């Protein structure tokens, strides 16, 4: 855990697939000091807006700033919780309803650190990363997503 950590690319083009998640989980089977993994997945909802029904979200980001901020958040969470691993993936471009747009994955010896860190990470990602979702509607129009 003492190795230097550098900013990693958290962005993936399009939806995050269940196979990618399975692969990421499987990669941890050699880390036999892990007792618990906590995972959060964001999925695109078919919300009804006054202007139409959401069919997809088109994500864009200020990528360089987002990666710097993600690194800062990552370091702060590693400093606060005794984690073995932490992974963050966020979609860019179009993600259809029912598909996954966010994958946050924390692992630790005991479950509480993994769970608390995962909650905190998702909270900070949504509040602090310069990422925007354009909700594409079935009426061919769009509205800009608002995080509440």
């Amino acid at each position, binding site marked *: 855990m003492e190795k230097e950590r550098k900013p990693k690319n958290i962005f993936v083009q399009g939806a995050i697939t269940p196979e990618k998640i399975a692969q990421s989980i499987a990669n941890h089977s050699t880390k036999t000091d892990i007792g618990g993994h906590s995972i959060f997945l*964001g999925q695109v909802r078919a919300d009804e807006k006054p202007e139409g029904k959401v069919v997809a979200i088109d994500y864009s*980001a200020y990528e*360089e700033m987002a990666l710097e901020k993600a690194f800062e958040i990552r370091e702060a969470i590693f400093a606060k919780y005794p984690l073995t691993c932490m992974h963050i993936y966020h979609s860019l471009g179009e993600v259809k309803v029912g598909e996954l*747009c966010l994958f946050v994955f924390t692992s630790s010896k005991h479950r509480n650190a993994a769970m608390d860190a995962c909650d905190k990470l998702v909270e900070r*990602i949504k509040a602090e*990363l*310069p990422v925007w979702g*354009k909700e594409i509607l079935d009426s061919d129009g769009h509205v800009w*997503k608002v*995080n509440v």
Partner: protein
Amino acid sequence: MNEVILIKAFGMIAEKIGGSELEWKNPGTLEALRAKLENEFPDLKAAKFGFAINKKLLQSDAEIPAGAEVALLPPFSGG
């Protein structure tokens, strides 16, 4: 000294400006930049957005360094 700044617009703000990049003469401060933007693009008056200078978010007015990259950031909605 490079007194031109690069303005990057995102999300709804890029949409209102009709583009994602502008190169402007440095107006000196963020408040002066906001006034100039609202003058050029009246749609921005009703829009909510903040600034980052060289990728650092700024919550209040600040001087814009020469050659800075200034980002116009509508409320984040990732996740």
